[in-house]
């Protein structure tokens, strides 16, 4: 889905060899990617930037002990997810979905989804759709939300998602499906008319292939 995690050269391996430019290019090209990653997991705007910066600096400081044999994207996303989990633990009392949606840029939703004819109606529908989806993702278990982010939004192979989250590939498969189904249901509630509902199919066995 996205080519954001394709690298001609491993930035940390290059940094270990004294090539700082590759790492700098990675930071410049992926700052927005990481900010978006944390935003979608539920962080506010400032918090997302803070977390992204934390991840980049952790990567930089871990260059000396980095094992180039491991997949760099998986390594980065594992560091990022751990940073997010640590942050969530520190502010465990705060409801994730609420804080996330409160910081959502409503104007952006309108700009993204509200172009074309029937402007006012589209804006209202987009705002409601975004709100319901944010609430639905906020209500997902953390692992489901992470799987959805990595496999669906980031478009990473299931095997890599499994490596990042340290779970079996079969578990990734079943949780991706459950997450999509729940989120799709949330979208249907937002816009019941004209949408094709996903017909119930056979329930996948968790961890099965």
């Amino acid at each position: 889905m996205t080519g954001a995690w394709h690298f001609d050269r491993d930035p940390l391996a290059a940094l270990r060899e004294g090539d700082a430019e590759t790492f700098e290019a990675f930071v410049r090209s992926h700052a927005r990617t990481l900010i978006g990653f944390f935003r979608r997991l539920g962080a506010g705007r400032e918090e997302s930037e803070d977390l992204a910066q934390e991840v980049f600096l952790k990567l930089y400081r871990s260059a000396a002990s980095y094992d180039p044999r491991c997949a760099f994207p998986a390594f980065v996303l594992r560091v990022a997810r751990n940073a997010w989990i640590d942050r969530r633990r520190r502010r465990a009392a705060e409801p994730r979905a609420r804080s996330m949606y409160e910081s959502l840029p409503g104007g952006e939703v309108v700009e993204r989804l509200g172009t074309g004819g029937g402007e006012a109606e589209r804006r209202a529908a987009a705002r409601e759709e975004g709100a319901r989806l944010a609430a639905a993702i906020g209500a997902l278990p953390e692992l489901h939300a992470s799987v959805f982010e990595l496999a669906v939004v980031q478009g990473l192979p299931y095997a890599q998602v499994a490596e990042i989250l340290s779970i079996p590939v079969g578990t990734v498969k079943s949780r991706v499906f459950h997450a999509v189904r729940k989120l799709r249901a949330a979208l249907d509630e937002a816009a019941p008319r004209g949408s094709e509902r996903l017909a119930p199919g056979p329930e996948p066995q968790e961890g099965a292939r």
Partner: protein
Amino acid sequence: MIEHVHLDDADLLQWRLDPAGVDPALAALAARCAVCSARADAIAGDALRTRAVWLAATGSESARDERAAGLAERVLDRSTRASPGVRGDLALVIDFVRERMRMSLALRVAAASLAVHLAAFPLLAWYVLRSDARRGAFETSIEPPPEPALPAPAEPARVPEIDEPEPEARLVEDAGSAREPDAGRRARLSDRVRLLRKDVPDLTSLEPPVERVARLLWARSLRIHRGKLDEELLSRSDAADPLANALAVEVLLDHWALAGERSPALDARLGGLAPDGADPATRAIARAAIERARRYDATGVGAGRVEPVDPLGPDWFRALSAACEARGAIAGGAAVRAWLGGE
């Protein structure tokens, strides 16, 4: 022929999202099955639709390039572009503090308040310590050292001659003239410090001549060490004898300096001081007593040039020794030596 079993939804979704992760044989079967293909498309469509809405809602695909670029520059400033001296733990601490300060107005206010207090503390300490120094108990210790009131008696000829003593009338006339109001108090306080010192100079080689002089000196010693005026001993001194009278004045002035009380006998003794008509050494002793009484602002003593006199100073003892020698050898030397030696 292999019978095809439709793949479940999770497999179909993976087939669309991660085709490389699906068994090629299963993928081939599903590709040939119209039902599986249609359902896979529907499920994948749901996933893509959800993704699109979510990306739009979070604005992650909108251009936040300026903020992202700013973040990248901050990261590079603290990593590859940071000077080696500030890398490591110190950089971590600085980063942490800087970020927290940036995020919290209350923290910035608290930090500013702390900075103000830290800046004000040395000034406050300086002010307090300076004030303490001004009201120190040993204020008199910083006064200039006293000039010798009497010449050294190493040679009898060097005993100061008082050829033109000030007439008593003139001394009395000058009483009450302008002087610094606190000068007398300060002079008494200064002498009190000297009198309380234990480092009495070793003058045991001197030979004081008269027993009543020794008695007076002994009374002075009692006065100094016990803090009480021995009126009985004092009364034995002969008011008609210039030397005895001058020493009695010294004792009464000691009492004034030490106890802060002025004895009524002081005025009478001061009135009897007559530098004229005595031998030069005795006149020097009387003169020293007058000068000291003047410093103390004693009534009946004229103002004028004030000569600081150390009540236990070597010059005073030398003058006393010379006065005693002028009267001839005596039997009271032992008592004087005992007093001088602190026995």
